[in-house]
């Protein structure tokens, strides 16, 4: 089961509003797993009736751009590189509640959210994310992004 369009839209709108990251569904386009480092960010959510986990993965270079955009600095600035993982975590932190609202309804809360965390993953991890029933392949500046919602 692919992710609902509303859920994908909630993430893409937030990525644009929070980090000027233009993101859209890949719409049938295929991408190999990124050759460079892949950052996987994840966050759990829990409400009275619903709980689950949201994950997003992308090339680390995209994370550098997110951090730079949020901090108002250039992509090549040292601070953008050193805060790359923090940037994707903050994006997930901001997008999480909107994704959950899109998935379960705006009045289904309240929800508690874990503090987002990141780890590096590889081509096998990327393939596993894409193979999840709640995944969506997105594209940002010709670079693939995977969004996964694991509703329990």
């Amino acid at each position, binding site marked *: 089961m692919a992710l609902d369009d509303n859920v994908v839209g909630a993430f893409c709108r*937030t990525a644009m*509003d*929070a980090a000027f990251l233009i993101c859209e569904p890949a719409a049938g386009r295929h991408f190999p797993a990124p050759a460079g480092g892949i950052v996987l960010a994840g966050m759990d959510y829990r409400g009275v009736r619903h709980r689950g986990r949201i994950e997003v993965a992308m090339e680390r270079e995209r994370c550098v751009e*997110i*951090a730079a955009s*949020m*901090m*108002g600095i250039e992509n090549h600035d040292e601070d953008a590189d050193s*805060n790359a993982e*923090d*940037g994707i*975590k*903050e994006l997930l*932190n*901001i*997008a*999480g*509640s*909107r994704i959950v*609202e899109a998935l379960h309804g*705006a009045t289904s*809360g*309240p*929800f508690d*959210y874990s*503090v987002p965390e990141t780890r590096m993953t590889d081509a096998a991890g990327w393939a596993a994310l894409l193979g999840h029933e709640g995944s969506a392949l997105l594209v940002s500046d010709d670079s693939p992004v995977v969004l996964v919602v694991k509703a329990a």
Partner: protein
Amino acid sequence: MNALKVLVVDDSATGRTYVSRAVELSGVAAAGIRVAGNGLEALSDIERGGVDAVFLDLNMPVMNGFELVDKLSASGMISKIVVVVTSSEGNQARIEALKSKGVKFFMRKPFSAEQLKTVIDEIMISRSG
């Protein structure tokens, strides 16, 4: 530049930087802007004095924003400062509960620098009144 003393509380360095820059662009002197990485650090800073307004994230480790608001409300300190919650929280009941404990403003992330300036302006007007 105004003399408002602002504490930005967010566990995310990118989040802290974004809010701090927006606060500065709103006319607050850079020297008047301090940061904290969680509620516990913020509480320590607030108790030392010299904080007029707190821009507070909710989802943080160690001590989250809800817990800090509870402590500031219980001690009465929340009446002496302006607490602005900056969070992605979207549940209206939780937002109203925070306001009932003394939170003056709620800004849902993501927000623009212009939206933040509106809040700073309102704080300055209320302080001059």
